[in-house]
């Protein structure tokens, strides 16, 4: 039988309701593991023992009173450190926010608190979520529990390594171009990016406002659906949050029959550039789907060729503006330059010392792309590509219910391998970026071991607002895999700290 800490959140929640375990016991278990193992994985920037245990005691009272406000009441959770919390410093992985304690809880965190989910701590990320490996975190990279010499994906590598290393049963991440899905793929976990606007961004430290979306990082599809149900919903504090409910994802996830499902394979994301092992696992999954009665169709998305380029204009443009507020005037780090400390020089010295190299690279890129005389050529053209990609998706979804591709071209790479080659790093996100540009939902589910016996991921995309369909298809594919492998992919994850 599995250890308690390796169980899915849904099972833990059931045990809590049955009185087999208390939230305080469970939270202690994960806090103890985290404190012991975090030196290996660097998943957490902050472990919040006191506050988590307090919340766990509250959850136990709710459960004892028979009043469980959510399906996961009492289950502790890890939160990416770009979501504001009033009881834990929130750094977004940046020196400029070192020791910054927010004055308000992000909407997602408020919802987790209302749901009775104790927050174990804040997980590591590339600085301001800019990166695919956590190597751009100002506080050191997180490690992949499958191989501690390899990256856990990024930017949400803290959450993915916490979940796959069982330092947390479930976690929250944010996805701007793949920051939930890529880390999930390389750690054998499940990561979902809901439809843009399904989850409030209020209190999410913005990277690129039109692309950012908060979502679940979990051990299985059902857990992801349950967590999306908890964090989703209209928020009057976020003008871009959807006014309507998308339904109960957990109900959709129960419908896991892929028979008759029209599954589109994106031509542009099924050929060049994918490692042979990754490609082989993908082809095997297509076969599994076919055998199970799904209808496979090939779809053509010619504009995807320009997706990465468009993304790396839109994202830096928005980020350059979003990050302007980090100026030392009202909060955060303040650096006094030598000589006369005029406001311009203090702002410049603070930003020089407070931002890391990738953040500076993107601020400069974005500032340039928005400059008068270049706006039309760069930002303007990128927005046109964005429209074309949306049109590609519209056509594709006329032919298919959901679309699939490998989540990423490779399995986890070694630290330093792509650090000096931004373009190679950016191409990791080639399959995940289009969903952000179009605002549609996407999920990565484990797709078997590929190169170096490491996990690879399968991405499922659905039309905007059809998150339910995405969860149904994901649950269907997960079931085919579990039936084939005899257990879930996460169950293959190594035991940390044994040797």
């Amino acid at each position, binding site marked *: 039988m599995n250890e308690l800490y390796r169980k899915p959140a849904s099972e833990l929640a059931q045990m809590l309701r049955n009185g087999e375990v208390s939230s305080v016991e469970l939270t202690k278990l994960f806090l103890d593991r985290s404190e012991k193992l975090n030196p290996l994985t660097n998943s957490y920037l902050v472990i919040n023992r006191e506050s988590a245990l307090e919340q766990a005691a509250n959850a136990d009272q709710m459960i004892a009173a028979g009043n469980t406000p959510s399906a996961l009441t009492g289950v502790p959770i890890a939160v990416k450190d*770009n*979501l*504001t919390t009033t009881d834990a410093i*929130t750094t*977004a992985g940046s020196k400029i*926010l070192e020791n*910054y304690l*927010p*004055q*308000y809880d*992000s909407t997602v965190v408020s919802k987790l608190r209302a749901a009775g989910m104790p927050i174990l701590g804040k997980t590591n990320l590339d600085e301001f979520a800019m990166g695919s490996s956590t190597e751009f975190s100002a506080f050191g990279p997180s490690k992949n529990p499958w191989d501690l010499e390899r990256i856990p994906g990024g930017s949400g590598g803290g959450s993915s390594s916490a979940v796959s290393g069982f330092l947390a049963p479930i976690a929250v991440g944010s996805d701007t171009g793949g920051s939930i899905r890529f880390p999930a793929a390389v750690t054998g976990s499940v990561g979902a990016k809901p439809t843009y606007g399904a989850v409030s*961004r*209020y*209190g*999410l*430290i*913005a990277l*690129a*406002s*039109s692309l950012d979306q908060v979502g679940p990082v979990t051990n299985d599809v059902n857990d992801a659906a349950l967590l999306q149900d908890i964090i989703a919903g209209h928020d*009057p*504090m*976020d*003008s*871009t949050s959807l006014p309507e409910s998308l339904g109960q994802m957990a109900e959709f996830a129960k419908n896991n029959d892929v028979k008759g499902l029209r599954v589109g394979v994106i031509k542009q994301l099924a050929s060049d550039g994918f490692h042979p092992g990754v490609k082989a696992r993908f082809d095997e999954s297509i076969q599994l789907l076919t055998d199970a009665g799904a209808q496979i169709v090939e779809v053509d998305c010619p504009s995807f060729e320009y997706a990465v380029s468009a993304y790396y204009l839109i994202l830096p*443009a*928005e980020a*350059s*503006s979003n990050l*302007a*507020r*980090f*100026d030392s*005037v*009202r*909060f955060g780090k303040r650096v006094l330059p030598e000589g006369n400390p005029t*406001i*311009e020089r203090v*702002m410049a010295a603070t930003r020089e010392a407070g931002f890391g190299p990738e953040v500076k690279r993107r601020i400069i890129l974005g*500032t340039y792309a*928005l*400059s*008068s005389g270049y*706006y039309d050529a760069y*930002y303007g053209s990128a927005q046109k590509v964005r429209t074309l990609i949306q049109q590609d998706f519209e056509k594709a979804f006329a032919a298919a219910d959901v679309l699939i591709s490998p989540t990423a071209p490779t399995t986890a790479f070694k630290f330093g391998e792509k650090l000096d080659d931004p373009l190679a790093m950016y191409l990791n996100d080639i399959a995940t970026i289009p969903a952000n540009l179009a605002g549609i939902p996407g999920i990565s589910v484990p797709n078997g071991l590929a190169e170096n016996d490491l996990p690879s991921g399968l991405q499922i995309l659905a039309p905007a607002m059809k998150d339910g369909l995405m969860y149904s298809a994901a649950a269907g594919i997960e079931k085919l895999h579990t039936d084939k492998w005899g257990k879930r992919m996460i169950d293959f994850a190594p035991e940390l700290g044994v040797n």
Partner: protein
Amino acid sequence: MAKAELMDFDKAIEKFEVVIGLEVHVELNTKTKMFCGCANVFGNEPNTNVCPVCLGLPGALPVVNGKAVESSIAIGLALNCSIAKDGRFARKNYFYPDLSKNFQTSQYDEPIAYEGELDVPVASGKVFTVGIERAHMEEDAGKLTHVGGAGRIQGAEYSLVDFNRAGVPLVEIVTKPIFGAEAEAPELASAYVRQIREIVRAMDVSDARMERGNVRCDANVSLRPRGQEKLGTRTETKNVNSLRSVENAVRYEIQRQAAILESGGTITQETRHWHEDKKYTSAGRPKSDADDYRYFPEPDLVPVQPTDDEIEKIRALLPENPASRRARLQSDWGMSDNEFRDIVNSDLLDEVDATVSLGASPQASKKWWTGEIARIANVEGKEFTELAVTPSDVAELEKMIESGKLNDRLAREALAGVIAGEGSVSEVMNSRGLEVVSDDGALTAAVDKALAEQPDVLEKIKAGKEQAAGAIIGAVMKEMRGQADAARVRELILERAKA
């Protein structure tokens, strides 16, 4: 800085054609700020009306104030503008310590209102049709107080920021270039601002108090030699905070620029500051057309999309246009141009109108407001709006006069009591004992006494010299302490003398 060399105004107009352009910022009087729920009030303790949104804290997001949008549409309609059916906000990016996010949320290429016009009459009777380029919504910045260094940012020891004003809703109204005003350009500029102020006050969308900065004007002035087609280089004189200053500043810039051009110099394109105390402008920062604010559509907000229905509802609620209202009132009241201009120029139209509609005659209403009340305001060095007297007080005063309960002298005393805060007209009359004595018994006794004391006068009256009665009236009025109806006293004297 010393005053620049100036050319005689008439000579400047003879040599050059004046082109002006006006940007008027109107602060809306909504209960809350443009993008958050903080109170929009003037004069509170610094940094008390602030929240994560208007402080630009990490993760905070804006939400548009629907009432501010309605007010902006109303202003647009009052200026005969078209209203945008799909208007986006834009970010105007620049670093300044009073700007919490280091970008101002504004509108750029999609203003809420565009292409309008406004008829502006000047003293000569000429009416100029001023073209309105656009009216757009934006947020105000915070307020900086520089300590040391003569209150300027350069050389200040330190500066304090008050963010109470940050996020206060503004509508910026921009005219098209105004040609052909010639010598009337300075007057037209102030008449235009006056009219904007009247319009927004009539609609109750702004408190419209220039001394508080509710209405602020930036005046663009350029000159070109007669016959030249190309526009001259312009200067923009900022934040001219009274109607008189608008006129003076435009006049000054015309004379200053003319002197420079005449001596073969060139105008520097720059912002200038108006110094009302010493009546001159000084150079601010250079402003080139290449100022790069890196505008781009605000991704945190959805477009403003008013329906035809909503627009028509707002239109139906618009008060009468002040210009046509003036024409109507002047004709209703049967006043000459001079009489009517007296009221308008004293800014008393609303008060007189209200007094008339409460039953007083137009002439009497005018007399009280532009006479005694204006005199008291002048003596006390206050705006008449600051005096504790209302149209209903004046109407009551007139009623008392018409019914013979007050005479002119007593009415002045009653008014003084009202302004001193002693209550309504009738309350002041009671407490000060101000009613005209209409008891014939008491008056007859006083008349008899006076006649007995001046037998020579009595003889003259008996002899038919009725004008001699004046001396007796004086004595009676003195006896009655002025509280007698002089006409009735005269009647009684003649009656008794002939008896």
